[in-house]
């Protein structure tokens, strides 16, 4: 099961073929890199900020003039929330609760921008939503 696929949130118009191609390209570019590389890769006329957590790659594709470190930590912030929400998340959690993961993503990112950064507030909201029928 490929995490990236499940976690697709596209903030630009791409058609399905383009999306698939992009996914494959990003995968190819990112998985060959190791610790001596930076966490940033130039990709077409964008850049990819990524980090690896155990067996999973989390990638964000941003504009060339976006702040690299800010997005790198945005990824980490997001992962910490996932961790807290799913109580030590593992890949299987993400698979079976994939729609909940979208909720987390949409709470923290929207319209291609960072929406909320306070872990406290995000978790509070998530728990509230969880209690709804």
């Amino acid at each position, binding site marked *: 099961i490929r995490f990236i696929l499940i976690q697709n949130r596209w903030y630009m118009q791409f058609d399905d073929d383009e999306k698939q191609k992009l996914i494959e390209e990003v995968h190819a570019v990112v998985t060959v890199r190791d610790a001596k590389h930076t966490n940033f890769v130039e990709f077409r006329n964008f850049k990819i900020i990524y980090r690896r957590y155990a067996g999973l790659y989390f990638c964000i594709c941003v504009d060339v003039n976006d702040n690299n470190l800010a997005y790198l930590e*945005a990824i980490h912030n997001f992962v910490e929330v996932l961790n807290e929400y799913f109580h030590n998340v593992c890949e299987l959690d993400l698979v079976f609760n994939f729609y909940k993961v979208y909720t987390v993503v*949409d709470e923290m990112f929207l*319209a291609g921008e960072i929406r909320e950064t306070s872990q406290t507030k995000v978790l509070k909201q998530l728990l509230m939503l969880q209690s709804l029928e």
Partner: protein
Amino acid sequence: KSKEAEIKRINKELANIRSKFKGDKALDGYSKKKYVCKLLFIFLLGHDIDFGHMEAVNLLSSNRYTEKQIGYLFISVLVNSNSELIRLINNAIKNDLASRNPTFMGLALHCIANVGSREMAEAFAGEVPKILVAGDTMDSVKQSAALCLLRLYRTSPDLVPMGDWTSRVVHLLNDQHLGVVTAATSLITTLAQKNPEEFKTSVSLAVSRLSRIVTSASTDLQDYTYYFVPAPWLSVKLLRLLQCYPPPDPAVRGRLTECLETILNKAQEPPKSKKVQHSNAKNAVLFEAISLIIHHDSEPNLLVRACNQLGQFLQHRETNLRYLALESMCTLASSEFSHEAVKTHIDTVINALKTERDVSVRQRAVDLLYAMCDRSNAQQIVAEMLSYLETADYSIREEIVLKVAILAEKYAVDYAWYVDTILNLIRIAGDYVSEEVWYRVIQIVINRDDVQGYAAKTVFEALQAPACHENLVKVGGYILGEFGNLIAGDPRSSPLVQFNLLHSKFHLCSVPTRALLLSTYIKFVNLFPEVKTTIQDVLRSDSQLKNADVELQQRAVEYLRLSTVASTDILATVLEEMPPFPERESSILAKLKKKKGPSTVTDLEDTKRERSVDVNGGPEPAPASTSAAVGPLPAFAFPNNPCISAGGFEFVCKNNGVLFENQLLQIGLKSEFRQNLGRMFIFYGNKTSTQFLNFTPTLISLHARASLCLFLTKPVDPTVDGGAQVQQVVNIECVSDFTEAPVLNIQFRYGGTFQNVSVQLPITLNKFFQPTEMSSQDFFQRWKQLSNPQQEVQNIFKAKHPMDTEITKAKIIGFGSALLEEVDPNPANFVGAGIIHTKTTQIGCLLRLEPNLQAQMYRLTLRTSKETVSQRLCELLSQQF
């Protein structure tokens, strides 16, 4: 095998869901949700789904959050453009937006933001701003509304006009809820770029906010402190917003400067945590602050501090930081306040180029070297870039080649170095040396006398290598064809040796290169008569004359013929040395811009160019004139002119050349004329190594009435550096016909002596002569009309030059007249016609030149409607033969 099993399983499930959806029994909400969710999951696994949209849309109208959520998720992932569905979806969204239930409003806004279709924009672009600024909207809904509006603006800006809501949005920067502030800042940043006036009040609010965050104690902002860093993402966004505007008014600016200083100070303090998250968050803010400092480019103190901070990062153990420091320093290099500070890090950057293991980091190092390059370090930097090129990734070679070529040209004090550099480029990375690069080196060699011999010699030596790149053969072929004579005296590079060297590469080259070499061979026939038969034999061979390629065949045939029928004079004229190339923006620069696309590199180029434009007192007075192109001091067939003082009759029929030359000064000209107007570029070259002081050229016109108007566009700098060349432009207008030429008088101090040079400017009446074609009938008709004795002037004179038909024709055309064939019954005679353009009148002119070969004499007849014109033209033209 498991793939097949998976597909089978999935198809089974799909069939099941399909039947449930079509079933007689209406599904309850829970089941519908379950199946729609499964469909979505299957889709995300990579299978196509072509049903379920209707059911998903139905879920939207449920009152249950969990069902609505799945419905919205499905339609935002599987976007469908069926108009009926769109109508239903928009309807559901409308209801949810009006529901006053923040959770439902949130879902609806997120859907709009995630889909962002034109139809949604049309439906909701009016509503969303209202929700955003309404007093009773909840914080989380405001956050979503702000970003939803941002998405709508991005995809359909025409549907989001500015209005009352804009000032309220600015006010959101003061909101208590930092999530709202974050979202609002993103929105304002995008809107401000297209509507700066509307949002300029956000600047002071942003500065206040930033200030409060940056100086906050660690116990404030609890929810928004991340690893001991207060609101890092919001800080970054505020700093980014400030980059949409120029430096603010003094009151606000003071506060902002304090803020930036605080950020810089904090970077120097010992870290509050060893975790990388802490340093990344802190540095994210730091880098954005530096970005703002660079953008404003107004506080030297801050710029230098930023540079020092980045300098420290250059040697940090974390690759990310070294990368970002190199990238950031690149933009710092173009600021005049920090350019020198950046240069101090050259050794670190060169080391990075050699030792960094991530190729993208090495690339940043290359970019930085390019940006920090100036006259003081050009040779060192070019040498390092060349050495890097030897082992560089293929994907970045072309860019490095272009950059080296640009730097070598821009900062060449000694053009021999430039030639060496380009030849090295070809040797190391020949495949990546595009045409623009080697065309340029040719242009420069042609335009600069002083490097032609060196170029010929160097290229000759380089060609000796057993395996040389085809681009080297092209450059070598061209240069030897033009300047091989400069090294032909040495037996080791005698004409035959040169020819054999080139020809040994011939069969290895592609068609375009071979075509070029053929041209070189015919030039050799002109330059070196002793190799003529050898070359003719080559041209005559079947492989040339019957070559499958049309271009090669044509060249071989024509050149062979030319070599046999043309007299030495004609050959010399046809194959005369190439004239200097006109100034133009370097096409290499254009190619680099195209490669890099819209990025800061192009801004860098403009800044680089702007800085070197200021020849009079800028930081780097370039020896060449105002652009990246080399100074167009004309190259001539006879480079070492003796002292010429008169305005040379040789200028009657040509527009470019050296007007005057002595030990100290060379004056070159390049002019163009059209109808009664003209423009003349005068180039003053200081041939010595000492400055000329009080350099003052003056135009003296000896006409009582202004028949010829001359305007100097701009005075020349009174100081002309040794080896420098300065240019002056003269605009010319012919008001009425004139006889006398204006005089150019130049005075200057050289060493302790006072120099005075006077020379006639070769502006003659025929410069305003425009050729007119006409039939034989017309000609004779007009000839008869001008039979008044005052209208005709005749001159019989002895020929001063060999009476060659082709050359004579060329001179008549060069004079400005049309050459009319088959008009005169005697085919040996030459007949011409044209119009002299002045501001006041236009004067038709006819001429006839009758040669007498036995007597070596000519009779020239001019007929025009004005006596003085006939006189002058006859006088001028007679001198030419």
